[in-house]
């Protein structure tokens, strides 16, 4: 499949995508997810769509967006047209497609469930129709023993028999075991990757599966982008968003991406019923998830029993129920006004993200820092994982700075606290700002953390502070 890339998608790519076409030169000042969200909202309010930003008479519109995004910055991002064509060419020759939220081909579950927090663009390889098939998300950690591999493969095999798609993260361990179990038995699989789509799709073992429509690979990150912990974490939400039910095979307690992703589902998003594997021995992580409201996995042995797990409807959190009032009266579509585009995609799920904020933030904050540790440990012991010293260092820096900046600090204070040069400090800070991890406060200039967008809620809810 190679859909024609719409003008809206081109515009969104110009604004938000790094458009890697080789040597990564100075990283462009692309919009963070938060910034793009604000821009999309602004465009909607003034009855425009992203495509209008690249029309011949866009100058006025770009000026009108100045309150949200600086005009010169917009212009230089939108001026990357040739680079865009180069990037698209690179993707297309490698059978990689790209869709944006403004496209009809954008996965409907993802758009309906994550709404403004759905990634503006998705890159993929394989038959995109598979993305509409829902299925069972299987999540768990990278480091697992043979028993868990066999368990996950069995789940994959059963899903294949039931003609239910397996949705997973494509990482080593649980992810790959579940996927392999399904694929080897003719089942269908969605792999939501955190990195390296281009390389992964070129792997020979994936080729026929991609060609035959058995496997589709998907990522919200540039197909050439390498591994980062942050990406790996944020991708979890997308796995749940594409599935109809989820199974947590194993999890650490209060740390790791698996934990954070599951807690976010149970406490906040409630997109799908979340099951946890039943264990004979106590498992602190899984037990805690059960206590939080996850469902015990009924260990289905046949197709009918598996079907039953999809029939549970996730409870609506009380805190969500309190906030039924939608944020935007007319936000059925995210990138275009219905009048203009005639897009009839009415999304039935209303602002799921209006629910609790702070407690979840608290959890994800912890889990972020802990998870980095655990991810690091795993990587160090892993042979297959691609890894380099710069990443190790940066991960440590990431942890320290994010801890430090729970309270806003000036650049000088941060440099002093770390005992490194201001130049180096600035480079790190800029990188976090580019990633959307930090934000800059003005007068005086200070830095503080900003929640990763995929974990971010639209509004603050102080009432939930009590849950702490």
């Amino acid at each position, binding site marked *: 499949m*190679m859909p*024609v*890339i719409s*003008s809206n998608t*081109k*515009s969104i790519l*110009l604004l938000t995508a790094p*458009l890697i*076409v*080789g*040597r*990564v*030169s100075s990283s*462009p000042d692309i919009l963070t997810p938060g910034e793009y969200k604000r821009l999309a909202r602004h465009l909607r309010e003034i009855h425009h769509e992203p495509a209008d*930003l*690249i*029309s*011949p008479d*866009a100058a006025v519109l770009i000026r009108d967006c100045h309150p949200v995004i600086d005009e010169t910055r917009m212009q*230089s991002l*939108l*001026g*990357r*047209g*040739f*680079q*865009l*064509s*180069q990037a*698209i*060419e*690179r993707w*297309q*020759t*490698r*059978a990689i497609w790209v869709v944006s939220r403004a496209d009809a081909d954008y996965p409907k579950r993802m758009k309906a469930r994550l709404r403004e927090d759905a990634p503006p663009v998705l890159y993929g*390889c*394989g038959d995109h129709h598979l993305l509409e098939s829902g299925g069972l998300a299987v999540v768990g950690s990278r480091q697992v023993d043979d028993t868990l591999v066999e368990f996950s493969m069995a789940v994959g095999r059963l899903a294949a028999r039931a003609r239910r798609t397996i949705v997973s993260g494509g990482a080593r361990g649980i992810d790959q075991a579940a996927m392999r179990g399904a694929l080897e038995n003719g089942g269908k699989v969605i792999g939501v990757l955190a990195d390296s789509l281009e390389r992964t*799709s*070129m792997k*020979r073992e*994936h*080729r026929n599966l*991609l*060609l035959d429509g058995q496997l589709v690979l998907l990522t919200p990150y540039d197909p050439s982008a390498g591994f980062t912990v942050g990406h790996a974490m944020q991708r979890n939400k997308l796995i749940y968003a594409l599935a109809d039910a989820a199974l947590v095979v194993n999890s650490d307690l209060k740390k790791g991406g698996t934990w954070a992703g599951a807690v976010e589902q149970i406490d906040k998003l409630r997109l799908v019923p979340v099951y946890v594997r039943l264990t004979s021995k106590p498992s602190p992580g899984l037990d805690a998830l059960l206590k939080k409201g996850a469902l015990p996995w009924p260990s289905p042995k046949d197709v009918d029993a598996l079907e039953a797990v999809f029939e549970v409807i996730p409870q609506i959190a009380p805190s969500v129920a309190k906030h039924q009032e939608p944020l935007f009266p007319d936000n059925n579509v995210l990138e275009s006004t219905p009048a203009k585009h005639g897009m009839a995609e009415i999304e039935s799920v209303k602002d799921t993200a209006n629910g609790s904020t702070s407690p979840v933030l608290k959890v994800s904050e912890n889990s972020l820092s802990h998870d980095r540790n655990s991810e690091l440990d795993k990587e160090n012991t892993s042979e297959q994982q691609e890894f380099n010293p710069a990443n190790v260092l940066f991960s440590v820096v990431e942890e320290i700075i994010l801890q430090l900046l729970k309270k806003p600090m000036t650049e000088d204070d941060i440099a002093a606290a770390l005992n490194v040069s201001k130049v180096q400090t600035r480079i790190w800070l800029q990188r976090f700002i580019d990633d959307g991890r930090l934000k800059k406060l003005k007068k005086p200039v200070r830095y503080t953390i900003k929640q990763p967008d995929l974990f971010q809620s639209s509004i603050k809810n102080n009432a939930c502070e009590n849950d702490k």
Partner: protein
Amino acid sequence: MKYQPDQGLKLLRIGAGSKKAVFREGQEEAIEHIVEGRGRLLVVQKTGWGKSFVYFIATKLLRERGHGPTLLISPLLALMRNQIEAAERMGVRAATINSDNQDEWSDVETRLGRNVIDILLISPERLANERFRTQVLAGIAARISLLVIDEAHCISDWGHDFRPHYRLIERISRTLPSNLRLLATTATANNRVMKDLTAVLGPKLEVFRGDLNRTSLTLQTIHLPGQAERLAWLAEQLSKLEGHGIVYTLTVRDANQVADWLKSRGFNVEAYTGETGGRRAELEQALLNNQVKALVATTALGMGYDKPDLAFVIHYQTPGSVVAYYQQVGRAGRALDTAYGVLLSGEEESDINDWFIRSAFPTRQEVSDVLRALEAAPGGLSVPALLSRVNLSKGRIEKAIDLLSLESPAPIAKQGSKWQLAAATLSEEFWERAERLTALRREEHRQMQEYVSLPFGSHMGFLIGALDGDPRTVIPPALAPLPTKADPVLVREAAAFLRRTSLPITPRLQWPAGGIPQYQEKGKIPEHLRAQPGKALCLWGDAGWGGHVRKGKYQDRYFSDDLVTACVKMIHEWNPQPAPTWVTCVPSLRHPSLVPDFAKRLAAALKLPFEMVLLKTDNRPEQKTMANSIQQARNIDGSLALADRPIPSSPVLLIDDMVDSRWTLTVAAWLLRLNGCGEVWPMALSQAGHNK
């Protein structure tokens, strides 16, 4: 941004080097359109109209307002030297990256990084080059403010001049956002091409179109079947024609041969082909300065060459299409009142055009061979690795890879230095396009044959009509027709000339990649075991002795005494030293007497003894069925041996009928020298032709 007319005119006058220069019709409108960002623009104007002023002035104006550099994609970079000089006068800093100036690349890269280049000129092939795209272009891709696509008719499948890499430009054009300034230019676009361009560049494409007629040209066609007749005609007419011009041939070999013939008749001419390499600029300049009477050129002297006072364009053979012909002949008489455009038509041209048509696309078998080899190699294969696995010539393998990798999605992609199967299959559309284009080529060829048979006076009208131009502008030719016959005396001399040429056989210095396992040799061939430089009498099927050799090999099974005489003459002129004192030949199990019989007669004529010392020990497929050098080396490996008899220790003349990869001669010479023989001088009747 607003266009300022006074600034545009000022730049034009600086660039043109004249204080009185004014814009030609449409030039200023085009500049204004681009500078003000009013949308995509297609300019259809004949060569010499001054398209380069449009993009150079637009670039300069954009740069002055702080915009990023212009990227110009053109297949004709080598020919833009004089335009680039004009650009530099205007203060437009131009740089080019092409396969001929690799030593300048890093300098250009640095200057690009410093933002001190205003316009970068590259070829479509460069744009497709992975290294260039990821290393050089990636650095400036985000800043390019104007994209110029030269010879835009190539984007269309219906463009006469199918260039596979324009497929890539077509796709890039489709994906470009509409806010990027884009200028497409071409000299020829018939209605079908225009339709395609609109489809690719968008419905809002603005078109500025000039007229096609060249009133100064007197066109004529003359049918002279034999090459000797045409050589004679050229020699006769060139001495009478005034001014300076171009003689076009279809192949590099013909260009060299025609140039050699004309030089032998005392004309100051030079051959100009794709193989001319570094001398191209010098030769272009020599013609511009009227230092040569003519260049004898292939299409390598292409569309962008602009010499306003070119007095004649003569074709030695009929080109494949009306558009190609119009572009070439239209180079004459741009700033003259009168000029000749004469097309000579000969018997061999259909074969050559047919070969061009047939070899433009890989066959299904070739594609499936390459894909199967890649299928069997999950880690991918480099081109040399493919050569040892697939019995196809390097050219054919590269052609298949080129075209496959330019598909989108592509069934193969290059990761590092190796080609790999990608997650896509080759669509049937690929073959449909190949078939459609092949059919189109045949139709174009037929149209040219129709042109050849037209009566004097009706040629220009035919061309304009075929190009969907306005035939009402056509006026009768101003000059009288040239004679249509050649002087018989000159024809005989030309025939003798054609038989006098011989071709060098360069000795191989190294065994093939992987060596020759059965002889247990690899790496460098020691100097004392190599062959000496040799000679071949002719090229397979050429107009000199080629036909005789073909007839001897496949029809008579006997090489005529004329060939013996010709070889004796060649050897005397060649005069290898130390001179061979005996003669031997390459054995064959398939035709055991053909070559030995000829070699014996040749030895007798040279008054040297003939000794059959080499044996064929294993009946292998004929070398000509082996499509590339590695396959041929493997095919000969272990199949030659020496007879059990003493080998004279003095220099020898080693005879074979055909030479292609030279592996047979290399192995034979190595065996002989290894066993005490003196210098080995290889000689073959014919070198395999280009259709390998």
